[in-house]
C-alpha cells in the first residue's frame, strides 16, 4: 500500500454536516423517480422507451447515438410517466412512476464482461479521461482509478454510502481488472484502508480535492496524450461487484442531506433519482433571502428546484442560503471576523476562524475581473500543471498549447476549488468543460 501526500488544496468546513453518530433514517419510498440525461456527459440520448411504456428496474431508457451499447437504465420498475423536453427538443428528464414492485432486469452473466457491464447501465457511472465523459466502449483503458472517499465540503463517507454492498468491492476489482491491461488503483482516505485483492491500494493524505479520482490519477500515473483511463468511485465499484455476483443491479443509495439551511442534517436511504421533496420533507430552515438546494456538493453540484430529482452521483444534497446578508455595506472593507475567506486578508484569519465551521451563502461577493492575483489556481490544484496557463490556453482555444499544458489530465471538478477561491470570480469549471468539449469535437 503506497502513501501519497498532497499539500495543495483546502478543506472548507461548512455548517450543516451530518453528525457521525446520527442514526440512518428510514428508507424514503418515492412515487416517482427520474433520470436526467445531463448527468451522463458524452452520451447523446436515443430513446428506447415512450411515454406510457412499462419498464423493470435495469431496463434501458435510452442509449447513446454513436455507441448503442452504452445505455442508461431505469432505477425502478414502473411506467414511463413523462419525457420532458427543453429547447431544441433536448431531453431534460425521464420520469418514471414506480409501481412499488421489485421487478428486475436479469443480467446475462455468461456474456463477456464488457457486454454485461454495458448491459447493467453501471457503465455510465464511470468517467473517462481525457475529456471527462462516459467511457467510449472499445478503447481499453491504460489504468482504472477508483476513489474510496469524497473530500468535497459536507460530502458523506463513500464507505458509509456503500456499506451494504461493501463486501462486493473485491468482485468489482476482479471485473474491472479484466477490462484493462494496467492496474486497478484504489485510493483510500487515511484510516479507511481496505484490503482488496488484485487492486493497487493507496492511502491519500491531504485536503480537498484529494478525493477526486483525477487528482489521484495525476499523482499516481498521469494521463499522457494518447492514454485513456477510467475513473469511478467506491460505490460504483461495489455496485459492479454486486451486479456481477447476483445478476441484479442495486439502485438503492444513501443520501447525505446537509448544509446550513437543513434543520436536521441526516443520512437517508433512498432510490437513485428519487424526488427531492421526499428526501427533504420539510427539513429546511426558512430563510429571508431564500434557500438554494444543490444536487451534490457546493463546489460541483447543480442547482435544483424543491420538486426536482436526485441526480448523479446520487448521494448528496446540500441546502445553503441564497443571500444571507442583503445589500451588505462595503463588504470589501469588512472587519467582521465572520466574513469568511481562506485568505489572510480578512479578520477571519486573525480570529483563527479559517479552519473552523463557517456560514456560506451563494453570493459571488465581487465582480468578474481579469486574472490578477498570483498562484490562486496552483495552490488549489495538486497536479503538475500550470493551471493559469492552461486556463488561458483554453480561453484562446489554442489546441497545441492545451495539449502541451495537460488538458487531457483534467476535469472541470478539479478546478472547482480554484473557482471558489478565485479573487477574479472567473467560471473556471465552465471554461474547462467547454474546452474539453470543443477539444473532443475537434479530435474526433
Amino acid at each position, binding site marked *: 500500500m503506497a502513501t501519497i501526500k498532497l499539500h495543495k488544496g483546502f478543506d*472548507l468546513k*461548512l455548517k450543516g454536516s451530518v453528525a457521525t453518530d446520527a442514526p440512518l433514517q428510514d428508507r424514503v419510498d418515492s412515487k416517482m423517480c427520474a433520470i436526467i440525461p445531463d448527468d451522463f456527459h458524452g452520451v447523446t440520448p436515443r430513446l428506447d422507451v415512450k411515454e406510457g411504456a412499462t419498464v423493470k428496474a435495469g431496463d434501458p431508457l435510452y442509449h447513446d447515438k454513436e455507441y448503442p451499447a452504452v445505455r442508461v437504465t431505469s432505477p425502478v420498475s414502473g411506467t414511463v410517466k413523462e419525457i420532458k423536453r427543453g429547447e431544441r427538443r433536448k431531453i431534460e428528464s425521464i420520469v418514471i412512476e414506480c409501481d412499488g414492485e421489485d421487478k428486475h432486469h436479469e443480467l446475462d452473466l455468461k456474456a463477456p464482461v464488457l457486454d454485461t457491464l454495458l448491459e447493467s447501465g453501471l457503465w455510465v457511472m464511470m468517467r473517462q479521461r481525457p475529456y471527462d465523459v462516459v467511457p467510449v466502449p472499445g478503447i481499453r483503458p491504460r489504468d482504472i482509478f477508483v476513489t474510496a472517499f469524497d473530500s468535497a465540503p459536507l460530502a458523506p463517507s463513500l464507505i458509509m454510502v456503500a456499506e451494504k454492498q461493501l463486501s462486493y468491492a473485491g468482485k468489482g476489482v476482479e471485473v474491472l481488472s479484466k477490462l484493462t491491461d494496467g492496474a486497478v488503483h484504489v485510493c483510500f482516505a487515511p484510516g479507511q484502508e481496505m484490503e482488496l485483492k488484485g487492486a493497487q491500494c493507496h492511502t491519500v493524505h491531504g485536503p480537498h480535492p484529494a478525493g477526486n479520482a483525477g487528482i489521484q490519477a495525476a499523482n499516481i500515473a*498521469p494521463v*499522457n*496524450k*494518447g*492514454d485513456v483511463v477510467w475513473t469511478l468511485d467506491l460505490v460504483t465499484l461495489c455496485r459492479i461487484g454486486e451486479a456481477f455476483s447476483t445478476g441484479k443491479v442495486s439502485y438503492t443509495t444513501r443520501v447525505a442531506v446537509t448544509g446550513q439551511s437543513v434543520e436536521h442534517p441526516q443520512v437517508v436511504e433512498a432510490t437513485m433519482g428519487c424526488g427531492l421533496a421526499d428526501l427533504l420533507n420539510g427539513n429546511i430552515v426558512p430563510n429571508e433571502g431564500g434557500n*438554494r438546494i*444543490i444536487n451534490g456538493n457546493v*463546489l460541483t453540484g447543480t*442547482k435544483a428546484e424543491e420538486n426536482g430529482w436526485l441526480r448523479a452521483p446520487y448521494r448528496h444534497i*446540500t441546502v*445553503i442560503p441564497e*443571500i444571507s446578508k442583503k*445589500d451588505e*455595506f*462595503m*463588504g*470589501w*472593507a*469588512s472587519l467582521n471576523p465572520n*466574513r469568511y*475567506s*481562506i*485568505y*489572510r*486578508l*480578512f479578520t*477571519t484569519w486573525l480570529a483563527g476562524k479559517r479552519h473552523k465551521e463557517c456560514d456560506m*451563502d*451563494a*453570493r*459571488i*461577493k*465581487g*465582480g468578474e*475581473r*481579469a486574472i*490578477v*492575483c*498570483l*498562484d490562486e489556481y496552483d495552490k488549489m490544484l495538486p497536479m*503538475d*500543471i*500550470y493551471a493559469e*496557463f492552461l486556463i488561458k490556453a483554453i480561453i484562446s482555444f489554442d489546441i497545441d498549447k492545451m495539449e*502541451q*499544458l*495537460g488538458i487531457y489530465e483534467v476535469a472541470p471538478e478539479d478546478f*472547482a476549488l480554484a*473557482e*471558489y*477561491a*478565485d*479573487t*477574479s*470570480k472567473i*467560471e*473556471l469549471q*465552465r471554461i474547462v468543460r467547454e474546452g474539453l468539449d470543443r477539444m473532443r469535437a475537434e479530435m474526433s
Partner: protein
Amino acid sequence: MDNLKPHFKPGGKLAKLESVYDGMESFLFTPNATSASGVHIHDGNDLKRTMITVIVALLPCLLFGMYNIGLQHFLAIGQPDAGVVSMFIFGLLALLPVIVVSYGVGLGIEFISAQIHHKEIQEGFLVTGLLIPLIVPINTPLWMTAVATAFAVIFAKEVFGGTGMNIFNVALITRAVLFFSYPSKMSGDAAFVKTDSAFGFGGGQMIDAYTGATPLGQVATNVGDTLTMTGVDGSQLSLCDAFWGTIAGSPGETSVACILIGAIILLVTGVASWRVMLSVFAGGLAMGALAHALPSATYPASMLDPLAHLCYGGFAFAAVFMATDPVTGARTHTGQFIYGFLIGVIAVLIRVYNSGYPEGAMLAILLMNAFAPLIDHCVVSFNIKRRLNRAKAK
C-alpha cells in the same frame, strides 16, 4: 441608491453614467448577485479587498513621506526646529494636490473608458493612483503629473484592455514619461525638495548651504576616491538617515523602515510574492557586492557598499511595491525568482555603470516587465517538456 437606479439604466436620462453608477453601487454595497452556474459558494475575497490591502501597506510610506517633505523643506529654509506638526501639515498640503491630480486624471479616464466599453469600473487604479504621488518628485509641476498620468493610463493600460491586461507597470510608466519628457525638472537640485511654500504655508529663503540633490544624485557626480553625501542643509548623511528616511527623494521612497512595514503587511496577507521581493534584494546585494569589490573613481557608485544600495534611492520601494505587481511580473514560481533577481542586478548595474542615471530601479523593472512573459514561457516549457518525455517514456 435603489431609487436612483432607473435613471442610470439604458433609457434613463443619466444612462451615460451607468458605469459610474454601477461602480459606486458595487463600491458601497456587496453585490447581491448569486452564482448562476459553476460553484455555489465564493470566497469573501475580491479584487477590491486585495487592492485596499496594498493601499493600507502604502500608508506608512505616505504618512512618513508627508512628514519628510516638510522636514526637507524646513531644513532647506533653515528652520530645522519648525516642529513635527508643521512639517507634516506642510507635507500634507504639498502632497495632497498631487494625489488629487493623480486620482482625478486616472480615475476620470478609467470611468470614461469603462462607459465606452459598457463595462464595470475596475479597481486597478486605486493602487496606481496612490503610487504615482509617492514616486513622482514633489517639485514636479502638477500639469506634468497630469499629462504623464493620462498618457500612462491610456497607452500603458486602457489600450491593452484595462486592469489585469497591462504589460508595463502603469505608475512606473508615469514616472518614466516624466523622466524622459522633462529631464531638467526631474533630476538634479530642483526636483526633490519642495522649495516654495505650500498654499502660502511655510515660505522662506533657501539657506546658503542648500543642496537639493538626492544622495544618489550626489554620488553620481562625485569626484575623487571618497564618497561624500550631504543632506539638504549640508550636513553629512549616514546609512541610518537613509534607513529612517530623513533624506531628499521622492515622497514614498526615502524611508526604508516604512517600506518594511508595508512589506510585512503585503507578505503576511499574501498579496505580494515573497519570491519576487526576496530575489530583488538578493540581486541588488549581489550586484552591489560585485561592484563594490571593484571600486573605481570613474564609477563613483561602485564605492557604495551593497547595503547602502538597498537603502538609498528608490530601490526598496521598487522591490516591495513595484516589482511585486502580479500583473506585469512573472507568474511562475521559478520565473519569479529569476525576474526579481534580474531586477535587483539591473537596477544596481544602471546606478553604478551608467552615469547618466543616478537611479536604476524604475528602468530595471520596466525592462524586466517586458521580459517577464519570456521568463514564464521558458519555465512553462520545462513543464511541457516533462509532459512530452513522460508520454514518450511509456
